[in-house]
């Protein structure tokens, strides 16, 4: 399949992040590894608390005390961002080559600064534009993200914008300095469904026209399918399965992934009943020794008491499970159906 392997634009290696809280050490990330190729879109999928956002913050250098990166590495085009020189490099990348769109557009803009001031600020800092140049470019950017009357909008304050419009502004800010990688952390969660689709279309268009790589963080499998080439599924602070979107959707290996897919309603396939994964993810304060999904897994066995290693799958992905590709939820779905009758 693979021809000459290019260097990934971003590579995360065995990343461990811990938070020191009153109740004890919370292991936010427990060995996360993935990479993003130039121009590629990767989806990080998982339920809330699985470590998706922590991963994004770690890459952006936003993990503040009392949280800290305990071990592992983050590499930008093969160069570490965690060494002292790397941190300097990271500071110069942030907002320019590496940018991020956050979950909540309502609180992500400074309420006392106009939209224009936000754009001018970032353009002047990273693109070294003069004030009038930055303003003109800001207007173009607002236009590019589909905001009408951009010139008038520049002088307005965030509270005069709707949620969807603010997220467009956030995207304009993120792409202002022509980034190579955009991290979008649940960019549509806070928005209405119709607006969600518009924002996702916008991201897809921008990716095509600018050729940028995107890491899309989401708990919604529905929006992954159309947008992403590769998928990594997170559970309890680590990645349990990764692979191309097509293979993961067609033949999920990990029971958790299978459950996730079977719990998402699909228009094109009405044969199966929806599955619900009982229970809750384990506490990251005292995570289990073995497989973290063990307590909720319908096909768990004794070997799951030890942590499964990551292994390659035939389709070119990877999975951390002792019994990959075992159809975990088939019986469950059947029994539910029987009961329903």
């Amino acid at each position, binding site marked *: 399949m693979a021809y000459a392997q290019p260097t990934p634009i971003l590579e995360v290696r065995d990343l461990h992040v811990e938070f*020191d*809280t*009153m109740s004890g050490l919370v292991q936010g990330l427990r060995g996360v590894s993935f990479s993003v190729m130039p121009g590629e879109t990767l989806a990080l999928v998982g339920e809330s608390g699985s470590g998706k956002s922590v991963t994004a913050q770690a890459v952006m250098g936003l993990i503040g*005390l009392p949280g800290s990166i305990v071990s592992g590495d983050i590499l930008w085009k093969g160069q570490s961002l965690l060494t002292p020189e790397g941190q300097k490099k990271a500071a110069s990348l942030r907002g320019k080559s590496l940018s991020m769109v956050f979950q909540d557009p309502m609180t992500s803009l400074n309420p006392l600064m106009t939209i224009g001031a936000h754009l001018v600020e970032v353009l002047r800092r990273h693109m070294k534009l003069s004030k009038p140049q930055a303003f003109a470019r800001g207007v173009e950017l607002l236009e590019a993200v589909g905001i009408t009357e951009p010139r008038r909008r520049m002088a307005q304050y965030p509270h005069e914008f709707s949620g969807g419009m603010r997220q467009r502004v956030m995207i304009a800010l993120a792409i202002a300095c022509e980034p190579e990688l955009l991290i979008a952390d649940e960019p549509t969660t806070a928005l209405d469904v119709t607006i969600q689709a518009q924002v996702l279309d916008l991201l897809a268009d921008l990716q095509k026209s600018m050729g940028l790589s995107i890491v899309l963080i989401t708990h919604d499998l529905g929006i992954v399918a159309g947008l992403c080439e590769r998928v990594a599924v997170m559970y309890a602070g680590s990645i349990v399965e990764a692979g191309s979107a097509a293979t993961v959707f067609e033949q999920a290996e990990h029971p958790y992934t299978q459950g996730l897919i079977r719990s998402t309603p699909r228009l094109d396939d009405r044969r199966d009943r929806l599955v619900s994964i009982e229970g809750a993810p384990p506490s990251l304060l005292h995570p289990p020794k073995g497989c973290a999904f063990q307590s909720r897994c319908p096909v768990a066995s004794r070997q799951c008491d030890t942590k499964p290693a990551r292994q390659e799958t035939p389709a070119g992905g990877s999975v951390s499970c002792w019994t990959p590709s075992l159809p975990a939820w088939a019986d469950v779905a059947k029994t539910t159906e029987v009961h329903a009758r």
Partner: protein
Amino acid sequence: MTITSSSMSDRSTTPSMIQGALMSVAPLGRFLKELWRDKAGFTGFAFLVLLVLAALFAPLLAPHDPAAQSVLARLKPPIWMEGSVSGHLLGTDMLGRDILSRLLFGARSSLLVSVSVVALAGSFGVMAGLLAGYKGGLTDALIMRVVDVQVAFPGLLLTLLLVAVIGPSTATIIIVLTFSNWMIYTRVVRGIVMSLRQTPFVEAAEVVGCKSARIILKHILPNLISPLLTLAILEFTNIILAEAALSFLGLGVQPPATSWGLDVAGGKNYMMIAWWPITFPGLCIAMTVLSINLFANWLRVTTEPAEREKRYARGRAAKMRRAKKT
């Protein structure tokens, strides 16, 4: 219910059971243990306890009559300085009165005035707030208009005018300070009641047909205790400072009664030659107010779980930064 309790006793080990029993028997012990963690709050609390004891037992503790004058022992310095007279630990004032004894009795004035004012202004303000928040409509509008108007009054000047007209005395300052300090309780209580009325449990009680008095007593009052406690404690500092200032100006506690503010005023004219008559009473006021502030600070943080977590996070972050530096 039975299932839960039995499964809980299965799991719990003996030491934690003993600990649990101790905690339910001795909330005071738990309170002190929790307080001990915040050294500043503990120090403040300890000072306040000592102060209350000193005020209560002032007649037993004081080495001299606070009003007893002695022409021969005027302006004698504290015991550790040259020229001091034995028996006067902190020296004497310009009339030869024992400063330590006056401080002990002065604590009585401060506490009497502050406790009375906080109790009177507090109960009046809370009642007005309950009425405004619960009745709503015209009652609410009327009460809150009065509050708004009175908050914008020229506070201390009006107090001075009232004192000048009525004539200064301990009773006068209690009345006048009550008059000018009840509004804050009304505002706080009304705010809480308004938000509580919209919570499901109060709405449910209303739908079921509980009487207003019962709703207020059973559902609303318990939710007011913690914020009111913090507010009242902070108001103490304001009243103590106000009493001291009024007494200093000669419009508060009148001789022969004693007050820290009054003593500072008395020593003022001699401060060129003797520092102790104004320093010690002033220090008493400052330390009392500081202790209350430290204790209130601890209380505020302890009663709010989110605040505790934030505080812990800040503490850890500061420690981690220090560790990094060394």
